[in-house]
């Protein structure tokens, strides 16, 4: 589904955001992309969506020309005055939105102003928006920032349902290391020129490689860096 080989990209010369990145994502996988702030995750999304082109290397997304890619952005701080209803937003993309709304159980919210919905429901609407043209690949950029833990779990469970029932390949950029480990099949950690690929169980080791320090990560939970270690490092 996605084949990236020796990819490098920089906005300003001599300051590469991504350097020599290589990895593959197969059809039907649910993959989490992790990395510290500024590691190039959002740049990678723009490359996957074709908004920007790599300086060097190759990137192949959905080699089948009929394949489509859906995208769910970060939860936005929407203007409370934005008057658009869920129906109007979905209609702006496609007239054929009812089946998707039924599938995601948001039919009863169609005539509600989007800005009046909870964070979890807003992201569900964004998911409906991205599913309207039946994508084969779904890319999500930190979709659960600011969403409560229950809505977050429901959201990830919905992604698993999409993967199983609609055979959609899912690429999720996130910081929710502990939570996503129970849902994803592969973890890719990136930081500039470093790329580590492994299973969810290998996440602590991958992050240790990436950050160069030890993390106490409780998989299936939120994570915190090892405070004692950080304290020692500071001295």
């Amino acid at each position, binding site marked *: 589904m996605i084949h990236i080989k020796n990819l490098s990209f920089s906005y300003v010369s001599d300051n590469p955001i991504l350097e020599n990145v290589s990895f593959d994502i197969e059809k039907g996988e649910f993959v989490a992309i992790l990395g510290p702030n500024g590691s190039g995750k959002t740049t990678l999304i*723009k490359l996957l969506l074709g908004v920007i082109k790599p300086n060097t290397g190759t990137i192949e997304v959905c080699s089948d020309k009929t394949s489509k890619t859906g995208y769910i*952005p970060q939860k936005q701080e929407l203007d409370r*005055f934005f*008057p658009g209803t869920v129906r109007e*937003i979905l209609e*702006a993309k496609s007239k054929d939105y009812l089946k998707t709304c039924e599938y995601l159980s948001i039919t009863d919210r169609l005539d509600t102003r989007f800005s009046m919905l909870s964070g979890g429901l807003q992201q569900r609407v964004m998911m409906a928006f991205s599913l309207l043209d039946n994508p084969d690949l779904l890319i999500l950029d930190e979709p659960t920032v600011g969403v409560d833990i229950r809505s977050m779990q429901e959201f990830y469970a919905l992604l698993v349902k999409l993967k199983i029932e609609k055979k959609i390949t899912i690429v999720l950029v996130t910081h929710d290391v502990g939570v996503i480990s129970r849902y994803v099949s592969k973890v890719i950690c990136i930081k500039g020129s470093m790329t580590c690929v492994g299973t969810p169980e290998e996440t602590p080791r991958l992050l240790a490689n990436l950050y160069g320090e030890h993390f106490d990560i409780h998989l299936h939970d939120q994570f915190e860096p090892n405070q004692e270690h950080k304290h020692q490092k500071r001295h």
Partner: protein
Amino acid sequence: MFEILGYGFVIKALIGGVLIGIACSLIGIFLVLKRLSLFGDGLAHVAFGGVALGFLLGIDPFISALAFTAIGAVSVQKLLDRAKLYGDAATAIILSVGMSLAVLIIGYVRGFNVNLFSFLFGSILTLSNSDLIVIFGVVAIVCAYVALNFRNLLLFAFNSELLSLTSKKDSEVSFYLSILTAMTVVITMRAVGILLVSALIVMPAMSALTIARSFKQSLVFAMLFAVISVIVGIIISAMFDLPSGATIVLTCFLIFVGASIFKNGSK
């Protein structure tokens, strides 16, 4: 009250005012939602520079203002896109440059200050037939663009990043919206004057956004509020011999206060 409707200039003012109100409210909704409420104000000051330049060169000030304002609008977009400036900072820069040019030209050539004042404060009661034709043309273009591009405009107001990543049309929408704002500002300064242009663009839109329950409803309410403000403002100003621009804007404000009270009352 109905006697004043027998005067041709009042009828022309009402027709022109209603048309201008429609264009301002349609553009205003998108500017307010993109947090560019003072964009119209900035462009109005640029238009003032264009008017002064028109007087200096001896060409129709409407045409010079239109060209000048369009350049200003595109410059603001470039400052936002390329230099990544904040919207208010880009507007402030363009506003200052436009106004400075106007002051320079006024200082250089003295003698047309009286004509310039009619652009500063508006004179909708002196609209000519040719003014009405220009206003009708601009309003038709604004309405046609909004109707034909409603989906993209809605997504642009909702999340321009999403529009950019899914259809790559955000730059196109942003560009045309800037040009249409420039055209709307130029016809609006005839009605309420350069100093009050942004009021007619922002206040009906803000009143509508306060109480509307959908996007389409907000556009309809904004048009309705703008048209009511213009009609009431023109009639009152004609009846009591008051400045028309200021009367229109104060009517807009009263509607905004009413909408806010209605919103708080219905909570």
